[in-house]
């Protein structure tokens, strides 16, 4: 495991920011951390990156114990904070070189060159970052987070406040990183981004509400559903479908039927056969895929009740 937390809790002046957080993040996994503003995402990242101490609970990062082995943890972690936090008067190269030296990178100049070239900023290396666009600044900040080749990368809202093109560049780069088998802990509000990038997702609202793969979350909340578009829906057709023993629920919406099934892969052929036998003219059969937004909003609203 790259991250293991047990009952990790943080209070600020008595106010609970993170409540008994217990999660495991596997090595090489992209773990999405979703939650509304003030849910404790940044506080969790700050605790795991050894920036603030937990009030109670324990955590291990790559086997190192939080609190006892903080220096070792800092060496293997990279962090992209909510704002780029660059030195505006210094060049991109000077910004990165500073951090490379602080992380004791063996050949800092070569490493800086590698990331500036990788992110297409080598030609602008001597320009002060204060003159850069938001997207370019974010790229420099990402390069800074990676400069020491961390095994665990915390990304806090990496595409927030970026224009769509810059956001796509950043997302594509994260996908590249995913290919490098680094562990990425991604805090985001962007559910499409989470869907595309994350292997598993944790939803937090002070305490963890759910952890699973995006599909696992959908299944646990909504089950699996098949949608069938017919030329015409008659009561006899609905009765025929409802009569099947494996059908949990049927909902009619115009000429469409939405049918809840436990195992659509095995049961869809039988279902279609039954429909045809009942005289239905089948136009389309598809799986109902609830968006991650539906999942997230349902979870957060249920938690708020």
């Amino acid at each position, binding site marked *: 495991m790259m991250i293991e937390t047990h009952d990790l809790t943080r209070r*600020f002046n008595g106010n609970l920011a993170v409540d008994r957080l217990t999660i495991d993040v596997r090595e090489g996994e992209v773990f999405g951390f979703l939650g509304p503003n003030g849910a404790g995402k940044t506080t969790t990242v*700050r605790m795991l*990156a*050894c*920036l*603030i*101490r937990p009030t109670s609970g324990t955590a291990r990062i790559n086997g190192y114990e939080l609190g006892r082995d903080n*220096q070792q943890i*800092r*060496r293997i*972690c990279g*962090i992209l*904070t909510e*704002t*780029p*936090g*660059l*030195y*505006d*008067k*210094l060049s991109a190269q*000077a910004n990165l070189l*500073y*951090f490379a*030296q*602080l*992380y*004791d990178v063996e050949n800092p100049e070569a490493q800086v060159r590698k990331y500036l070239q990788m992110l297409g900023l080598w030609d602008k290396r001597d320009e*002060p970052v204060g003159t850069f666009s938001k997207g370019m600044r974010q790229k420099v*900040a990402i390069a*800074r*987070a990676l400069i020491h080749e961390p095994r665990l990368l915390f990304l806090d809202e990496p595409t927030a406040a970026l224009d769509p093109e810059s956001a796509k560049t950043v997302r594509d780069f994260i996908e590249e990183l995913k290919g490098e088998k680094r562990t990425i802990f991604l805090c985001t509000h962007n559910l499409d981004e989470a869907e595309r990038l994350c292997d598993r997702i944790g939803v937090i609202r002070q305490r963890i509400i759910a952890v699973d793969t995006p599909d696992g979350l959908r299944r646990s909340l909504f089950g699996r559903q098949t949608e069938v578009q017919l030329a015409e829906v008659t009561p006899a057709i609905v009765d025929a479908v409802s009569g099947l023993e494996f059908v949990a629920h049927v909902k009619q919406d115009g000429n469409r039927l939405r049918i809840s099934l436990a195992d659509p892969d095995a049961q869809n052929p039988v279902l279609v056969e039954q429909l045809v036998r009942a005289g239905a003219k089948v136009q389309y059969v598809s799986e109902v895929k609830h968006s991650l937004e539906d999942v997230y909003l349902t979870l957060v609203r249920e938690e708020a009740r």
Partner: protein
Amino acid sequence: MKKALIVFRKEWREILQNKLILYTILVPPILLAIIPLVMMYFMRNEPVDPEDLAMYSQFVAALPWLSPEEVVMYVLLNQFVLMFLMMPVVIPVTIASFSIIGEKEQRSLEPLLATPIRVTELLAGKTLAAVVPALLTTWVAFGIFLVGARFLATPALLRALLSPMWWLAFFVMAPLFCILSVAIGVVISSRVNDTRVAQQIGGLIVLPVMALAMLQTFGKVLYTTQTFALACLVLAVLDVLVIRMGSSLFQRETILTRWK
């Protein structure tokens, strides 16, 4: 120490990009070195004002190896030498607050504190960046003043200006002032978000030094090696107290959760 030097170098790169800070570091020492020399040049052939002589009559008695004219010049030059001590007070607090508030404004503290640097190394780097230019400019300005005085002052006056009191002031008191000034800069920076406000508040710490200089100007006190040694002792105690306060504020947790 290696990381403190990395921080020191980076701080200097930033300072070199900031003209306001550069002027703060360079202009006062140049003025303080030149003005007393110009004054000495014009005063050396002028008769002494009897009112001045009356004001400094007690000093004439205390410095019998100087002529009354030399005593008046000595006292006036002493004001400037005391003014030199304003540099190790003003420059470090200016640089320290620029550096720390600059980090706050740019929101660069969080990624910086996520690195394996120890906060003591970070503080040491920032302290060095503030103290080294202050001490260097103070010493260079004093050096220029002494070289000029070598040609303009009488031998007796020059000997008086080279008394142990001044060596104590420049090589013990000035570094102590620097450390005090940086520590105050850290304390101010933890509560303020605007560099100019921090510099204005920091500028207030120069007032006690000016008040001490004024006491001598108005003939109330003549500083000696003993009084400076005592002042050094008081400063050392103050340094320890303010450093403790500054260090307690300069912790990862405190910076990220309690600083304004």
